């Protein structure tokens, strides 16, 4: 999307024009959803969070400084909304002990490059508190002090949560790698354990209209 077209859409959104709002929404849907998915448990929650983010965008778009990149402003809003959405769970105290997990994560990370779906699935399996800190530190590039302020937690807690998140992710990667090695499939975790197709499935396969 060109700069001129973007400014026209923003102007329409300031005037509360529903058509312009939908076009802006569609144009930045993938970008925004990509951010929210990293913080959410699943796509449904991510869509809900993203909509809350767009709601803020549409209601506060008159405060947007047009001299700055729109994508950065939008991304910041999506991150903040994601944090707010899960803020209630960020201070959850876990009884789960990671000592056991640390023992498991002995071993080296494989050099194989994991695809987007696999990485996203792993991040989404993390508890909210670990996932948020990992996202903010590893992907967004914030420091522990900044994260502490954003999440209203101690920087020590941020470090601890990051450490636990890494341990868990490493454990997941190793597990996925071992499964891939055993199954001899090319795509990491992306394998199917089904070995037989029953009669009903075959019937469905041939009667689906979109095939």
């Amino acid at each position, binding site marked *: 999307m060109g700069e001129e077209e973007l400014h026209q859409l923003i102007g329409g959104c300031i005037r509360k024009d*529903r058509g312009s709002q939908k076009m802006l929404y569609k144009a930045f849907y993938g970008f925004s959803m990509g951010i929210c998915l990293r913080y959410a448990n699943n*796509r449904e929650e991510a869509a809900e969070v993203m909509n809350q983010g767009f709601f803020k965008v549409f209601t506060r778009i008159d405060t947007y400084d047009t001299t700055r990149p729109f994508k950065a402003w939008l991304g910041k809003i999506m991150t903040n909304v994601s944090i707010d959405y899960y803020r209630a769970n960020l*201070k959850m105290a876990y009884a789960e002990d990671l000592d056991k997990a640390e023992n498991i994560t002995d071993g080296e990370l494989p050099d194989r490059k994991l695809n987007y779906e696999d990485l996203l699935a792993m991040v989404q399996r993390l508890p909210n508190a670990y996932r948020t800190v990992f996202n903010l530190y*590893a*992907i967004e590039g914030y420091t522990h002090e900044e994260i502490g302020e954003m999440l209203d937690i101690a920087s020590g807690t941020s470090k601890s949560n990051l450490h636990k998140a*890494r341990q868990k992710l490493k454990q997941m990667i190793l597990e996925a790698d071992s499964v891939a090695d055993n199954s001899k499939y090319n795509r990491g975790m992306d394998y199917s354990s089904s070995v037989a197709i029953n009669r009903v499935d075959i019937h469905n396969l041939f009667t689906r209209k979109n095939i």
Partner: protein
Amino acid sequence: MSTEEENKLDKAFKNGLEDPVNEPAFREADWGAMEQMLDQGKKRSGIIYLLPIISGIAAVLLIFLGYFFFKTGETKPEKKNQVAATQSAKSEAIDKAKNNTGTNGEPARQVADSGKQQTKSAQDAATGLAQTSRPESGKTFFPLSSGKVRRSTGTSRPAVNKEQQAIANDIAKNTGNGKVSPNIADSKSDQKTDVLANNNKATTNADKTVPGNAGDKTALSTVDGKADQKADVLANNTTKAGDKTATAPSDGKTSLGTVNDKEGQKTIAATPTKQTTKPAISRNPGSRPIFALGIIASSDFNGVNSAFQQTKIGGNFGATFSVTFKKWTISTGAQYDIKPYLTNFDNYHASYKFPTNPTSVQADCRMLDIPLNVNYQVYHQRANSITIGTGLSSYFMLREDYQFNYGNGNSAYGGVAGTGPQHYTVINRNRNILSVLNIDATYTHQINSKFGVTVQPYTKVPLSDVGASQVRLQSTGVAFGINWNINASSKPK
């Protein structure tokens, strides 16, 4: 995990997640939900966002009305007091005037004394100080005399001024007392001089008197020994001063110099003190609002969704402020609530997805309760009364502690219980404005006009979900309190 390995892991996720190869495809259903939000946003801004404003306006209105009633309740009796005191003082003055006017020379002295007094009281009335900064006696007495004094002295002054010096000399000659004459001669502008001059005119040179002069009228009437029934305030002051100096030598001319203004003031000030207390008692306590402050403490049962088999006992304490007008009482205040409760996990709502759902949740909530209630008096006999009331409360959650009980839910899968969060704390986050309905009955026993004790059974019914857990928290209990009527009358109704 080594630092190198950590960096490798971070980089792998950063590169992989930051630029998805295939961005999530647009779904029309998501835009549908977005449109709904945008439409609801308009309604939200119309209702929900206005609630704090509405409640703020209501609070301001309450304070304003309270202040208005308070002011009117306080000022009206003051006026009544003044009028009553005026009437009684007038009649007393007339009586005294009858008794005292027979003494030769006395009125002159009396007028001399009252002259200063009148001037002062006139100034007081003009500046408005008579009611506020003066002693209590001054409140009623000075306004009494000020208006009329101003008129009477105003008329007498021009008529007499021309002759002041000459008449003062007459006095000096007549008395033969060097101490007195300079005093009078010096105070040319003083009313004392004016009136004295008139008096002397009346006694020594009857030809020079000016008819229609208020000062002359007084002097003449007293000289003649006639009690004028229509004597104005000037006469009132005259007689009072005369009382004080009744034991002085009978020669009025010589005693002129010995009249002490301070003594005169004391006498005058002491007289109306008794008069002012009487009208205060006659105020009707039922016709004005009564403002009361109170402290309250209560204990209640707390449960979720009327599930009182799982109730826990909480405690509350706080302060109240109420305005009672006739049978209606509007009250508000602030209460610190301690509300523990236990509920099934089904009633607990959170966006967080528990790995294993707890069986129950034990909560301990600390909140600020701001009620706004209206009560109506249904029974009243002697010092006892019963009111029933309703209203709305706003909860400001100060601290919410949630304890998750897992029981033995996981024992079937390995015997380890509680693999999820054990507890969760939220501080100062949730506010539920006017979200709880209060229903209460209040029994009040008035110990005296100022203090009363109250017993108040109550129930709090949630109109919406409250707190981080979004539960329907219901409370039922009994509150005990002490009320202090700020502007109570001397006797309980």
